[in-house]
């Protein structure tokens, strides 16, 4: 018995110690969990910006950017036709609270109707909740496909002496803090029901009188199932019936009175809402050029992925291949800009220079294989040997053109 008590105490201490293991920094949350071809073909991300990286509890931060459901959306996801989407944030738990979300300028609190090939300019305002250093990504969840994650950033939240609050005003004008609203009603009511339940159980099971379970087993075995022997046998007595009536009565009174009180105290309630929206189309982008990928060659010896593309300049001024975006990565032409952040890298474009108006040119984009392998974006050994992404072309005035390209992947050796 002493040994048992010691073991129980050790287990309890262990459990208590584990409750102190609160996380303050988490970085991995499935960024590369999905197969490479899925991340390449499904969604494109660009211009993702985090307005701040250091916050105090209750400060707001805005994540903005653009995401596109690519024309190359895989046929084996959402039957090749995504229709319901949800723009969200991937973070390690509810470290932030989402207080505003706009898609193409429209407030979108819940899911939205989406379609393949559509572009969504978004902004999400997050209110800092939990102190710590958190890795945060924008993400788009697509029904019957899963959540596809965009580029992320570490955000530091410092604690505030006043703690966190999530203020909201009800339609009746009353201000509430959603963080703790209704908690005591839930805890209090649950606790009272537990008292009633324990009262019922202890009455029957605590040894004493004739309530010993071992003895009852012998008697119950000799009685038909729908009989208790009555007061003569005494395993269920009139006193038992009376006592159970008291507890049942107390339960009925508690639930009935609680129901009436809550119905009047929280009057004017409405059912849960399902308000899905269809965001308007974004402003039409300038059509500067068209791009068509013709081949993608991965050479393990040089560890380089080369994407051969035919670009036709349809504008009136020269254009430059400025970036290639795939999955949540961006590869920049050094002529157009230098990488910054965890998800931007350099690429080589040959021939270098611009493509003149009306000219069609074969352009080869070379991407370092190490980055792709680290992000598990090279779909080697996967179900589709395909490379896809968004090729960005820019003219001298800074107008930008985003073309979705895709082509088969051909490694030079296995």
């Amino acid at each position, binding site marked *: 018995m002493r040994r048992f008590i010691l073991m129980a105490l050790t287990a309890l201490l262990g*459990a208590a110690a584990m409750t102190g*293991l609160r*996380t303050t920094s988490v970085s991995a949350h499935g960024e590369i969990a999905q197969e490479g071809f899925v991340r390449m073909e499904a969604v494109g991300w660009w211009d993702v910006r985090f307005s701040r990286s250091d916050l105090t509890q209750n400060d707001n931060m805005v994540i903005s950017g653009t995401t596109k459901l690519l024309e190359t959306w895989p046929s084996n996801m959402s039957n090749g036709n995504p229709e*319901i989407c949800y723009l*969200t*944030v991937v*973070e390690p*738990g*509810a470290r*932030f609270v*989402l207080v505003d*979300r706009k898609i193409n300028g429209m407030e979108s*609190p*819940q899911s939205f109707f989406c379609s393949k090939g559509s572009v969504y300019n978004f902004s999400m305002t997050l209110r800092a909740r*939990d102190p710590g250093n958190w890795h945060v990504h924008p*993400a788009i969840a697509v029904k019957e496909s899963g*959540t596809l994650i965009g580029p992320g950033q570490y955000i530091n939240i410092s604690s505030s002496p006043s703690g966190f609050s999530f203020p*909201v005003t*009800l*339609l009746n004008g009353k201000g*509430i803090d*959603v963080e703790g*609203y209704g*908690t005591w*009603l*839930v*805890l209090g*009511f*649950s606790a009272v*029901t*537990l008292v009633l*339940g*324990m009262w*019922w*159980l202890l009455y029957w*099971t605590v040894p004493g009188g004739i309530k*010993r*379970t*071992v*003895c*009852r*087993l012998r*008697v*119950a075995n000799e009685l038909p199932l*729908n009989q*208790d022997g*009555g007061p*003569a046998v005494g*395993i*269920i007595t009139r006193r038992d*019936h009376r006592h159970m009536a008291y507890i*049942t009565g107390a*339960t009925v009174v508690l*639930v009935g009175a*609680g129901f009436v009180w*809550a119905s009047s105290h929280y009057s*004017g*309630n*409405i059912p*849960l809402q399902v308000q899905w929206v269809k965001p308007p189309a974004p402003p039409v982008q300038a059509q500067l050029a068209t791009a068509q990928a013709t081949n993608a060659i991965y050479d393990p010896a040089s560890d380089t992925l080369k994407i051969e593309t035919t670009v036709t300049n349809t504008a009136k001024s020269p254009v430059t291949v400025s970036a290639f975006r795939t999955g949540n990565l961006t590869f920049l032409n050094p002529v157009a800009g230098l990488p910054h952040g965890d998800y931007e890298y350099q690429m080589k474009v040959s021939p270098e220079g611009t493509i003149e108006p009306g000219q069609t040119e074969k352009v080869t984009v070379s991407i370092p294989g190490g980055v792709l392998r680290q992000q598990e974006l090279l779909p080697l050994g996967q179900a589709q040997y395909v490379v896809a992404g968004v090729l960005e072309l820019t003219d001298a005035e800074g107008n930008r053109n985003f073309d979705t390209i895709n082509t088969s992947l051909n490694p030079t050796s296995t």
Partner: protein
Amino acid sequence: MATATIDLEALRLRELAERRYKFIDRKWDLMFWVTAGFVVGAAANITHLLFAGDWDFWTDWKDRQWWMTITPFATIIIPSALQYIQWRAWRFPTGATYTAVCLFFCTWIGRLLQWKYFINMPINFVWSATWIPAGILTDYVLLKSRSFILTSLIGSAVWTMGFWMSNYIMQLPYLQPTRFMGHTLTVADVQGIGYIRAQTPEYLRIIEHGSLRTFLQETQYVSLAFGTTLCVFGYWVGQFIGRRLAVWPIFKYLKQY
């Protein structure tokens, strides 16, 4: 003569019931009820999570249609089995309450440790429903009727209504309307939007789905009636588990020796 025979039989049974065992009683009782608590709580929790997990997990899933239809069915199965086992063995009308109390501890330990202390989800978003009032009322039906058929019919209705009324009290504050992101939403909807569940997008919610839009908009009461009907079915699933998978194999085993 017949009365005397019955009285003698009752007297014999009464003596059996009142027999005192010096050492085995209390320890056996304590060991049994505490050990069984883990098993019953786990069984009830698994059944609950398998069939009605999300509906009972988040306030923004606790709707007036599916929560009330699915959850009573999912959660009557183990109480029904325990009602049979405890009534059959000891004539205890405690199976439903015992399961409800075990489930109470299981769910609340999970919510507090995993959801509140480990990842700091607000407890008012992930609170667990209570089945204890429904359990007491259902056990009372068995005590008074001593019939599993009547308990399946009346008790299922009592279980469903007891579950709805007792949990509606706690859910009501979260059905208050508010203006959020330019839309009229409930506080529960605001919780679901605000406290981000990265891998549980909003469109996964199975709430207010379907074409149940007639009946003068009183869909909740239709759902409760349907939930009761399902609950009767669930009750007999539980009876099957209690009779055929729990008690019957024990007797089969004992008869061998």
